[in-house]
């Protein structure tokens, strides 16, 4: 009779910790370490939150389009947003935009063009190389930031879609999905969803108009308009529509959300202009964020947000007080 003697180091199967518990312990430990770290360094947890799930992007620096002004820190860019689909508080988007799923994502291209259809985001972007542009962003509420965007020139994407001669305007729409966007479920919201924006064709083809897919070198956090958003730096921030799902080439000037909401306060053009006040506040100055605690960081607002040289020709002969 053979008696199998077990060496002392061999453990029976019954003593093996199940894999799930083993993995849970690891998860618990990383969680605990993270929590402990965040207790000692308050900013840390925050930074983790903003960057979780974001991918690093390959890009070249387009310095010819970039300002050398001091950049607004990443934490502020990702914690202070207007994205009413997630609530009107500045902190709401950072809190709730995680409820939106951005992968997979597709963009419906329609209207006056040769290449309409439903594009997976990757296919829309495949032909293009990313570049980084550090732009000023001037909100109509009289605050501003300096943000390093990563993306592609809007003109390149438009050329790829081949608009025809009837295309005089480009229209954009944000995702409309109340299940993922709690602000769209609000009873007393006066926005007629989806959020809509538009540009005249020559504005859209201007070298500054940009489709951003990232900021600070990584893919866009949801609260900043992931996975793809417009950036038109010479116009007030609300023109830079987020989380785009529809691009339409149109013959007629499209209706845009803020114009629909309060036509006496917001126009189709919405060019940054210190000479034309908002009916409720002055546009002569802006608070460059982060602003100081004891003294606000007021700076003078410049015409076309400082991009006059590149865009003023688009509006030659137009009365900008009338077409605000």
């Amino acid at each position, binding site marked *: 009779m053979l008696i199998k003697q077990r060496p002392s180091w061999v453990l029976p199967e019954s003593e093996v910790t199940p894999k799930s518990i083993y993995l849970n312990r690891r998860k618990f430990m990383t969680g605990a370490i993270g929590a402990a770290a965040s207790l000692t360094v*308050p900013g840390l947890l925050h930074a983790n939150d903003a960057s979780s799930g974001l991918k690093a992007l390959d890009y070249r620096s387009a310095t010819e389009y970039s300002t050398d002004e001091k950049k*607004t*820190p990443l934490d*502020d860019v990702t*914690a*202070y947003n207007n994205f*009413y689909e997630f*609530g*009107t508080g*500045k*902190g709401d988007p950072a809190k709730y935009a995680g409820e939106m799923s951005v992968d997979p994502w597709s963009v419906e291209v329609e209207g006056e063009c040769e290449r309409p259809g439903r594009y997976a985001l990757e296919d829309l972007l495949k032909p293009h190389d990313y570049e980084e542009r550090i732009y000023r962003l001037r909100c109509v*509420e009289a*605050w501003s930031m300096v943000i390093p965007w990563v993306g592609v020139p809007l003109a390149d994407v438009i050329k790829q879609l081949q608009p025809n001669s009837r295309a005089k305007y480009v229209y954009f729409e944000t995702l409309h999905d109340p299940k993922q966007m709690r*602000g769209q479920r*609000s*009873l*007393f*919201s*006066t*926005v007629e969803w989806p959020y809509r924006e538009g540009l005249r064709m020559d504005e859209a083809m201007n070298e500054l108009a940009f489709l951003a897919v990232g900021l600070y070198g990584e893919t866009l956090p949801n609260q900043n308009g992931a996975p793809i958003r417009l950036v038109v730096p010479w116009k007030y921030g609300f023109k830079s529509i987020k989380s785009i799902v529809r691009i339409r080439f149109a013959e007629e000037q499209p209706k845009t959300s803020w114009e629909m*909401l309060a036509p006496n306060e917001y126009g189709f053009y919405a060019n940054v202009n210190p000479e034309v006040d908002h009916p*409720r*506040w002055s546009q002569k100055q802006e*608070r460059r*964020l*982060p*602003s*100081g*605690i*004891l*003294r*606000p960081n*007021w700076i003078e607002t410049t015409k076309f947000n400082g991009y006059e040289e590149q865009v003023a020709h688009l509006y030659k002969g137009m009365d900008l007080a009338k077409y605000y």
Partner: protein
Amino acid sequence: MAAITKRVMAGVAAKVMVFCLALVPLALLISDILTGSVGPDPGQAITERLGLTAFQILLLTLLITPLKKLTGWSGWLRYRRMLGLFVFFYASLHILAFLQLLLGWGDLWATFTKRPYLVMGAAAFVLMLPLALTSTKGMMRRLGRGWKPLHRLIYPAAGLVWVHFLWQARSDITEMVVYGVVLFVLLGLRVYWSGLSSLIPLRRG
């Protein structure tokens, strides 16, 4: 005798507690400032929070009369003056923060007369000014029967504050609607109990 002293002590303790509670919003704000969690636009955030606190305490002062009616306990009245003065305190801080941390002190006249929502806020503050000044026992005695009609100015002031709040909305007015409903109910109860004339300030009787 001992029982009376105990009651007085309890009354004082309750007042001290209400006083401390009314300072909690300020303490939280200061702690957020010190820990850097008021965000990148602190002037805006601080101004908004102080204003909202003033409005909330204002609604609390308007709750006292209905509470007295509904509970039959007149002890609530003991806290009204203090709460009223806290409204004035937070409203003053709100305006100071607006000027020092947000807008700047240049051309105050233009600041408060040009923008309609600021006209509303400034008007509400002007209405509250005589109320704060006549809140002492001596002034109450001196004004006698005129005191109450004067202090009904808080009703139009509350309405102006609400309009001031509403006119800052850019699109979603949920919060404004909620505050508006509360204010409407608080004033509506008075009309229901004592008639519309009970809301009219500066009129005796």
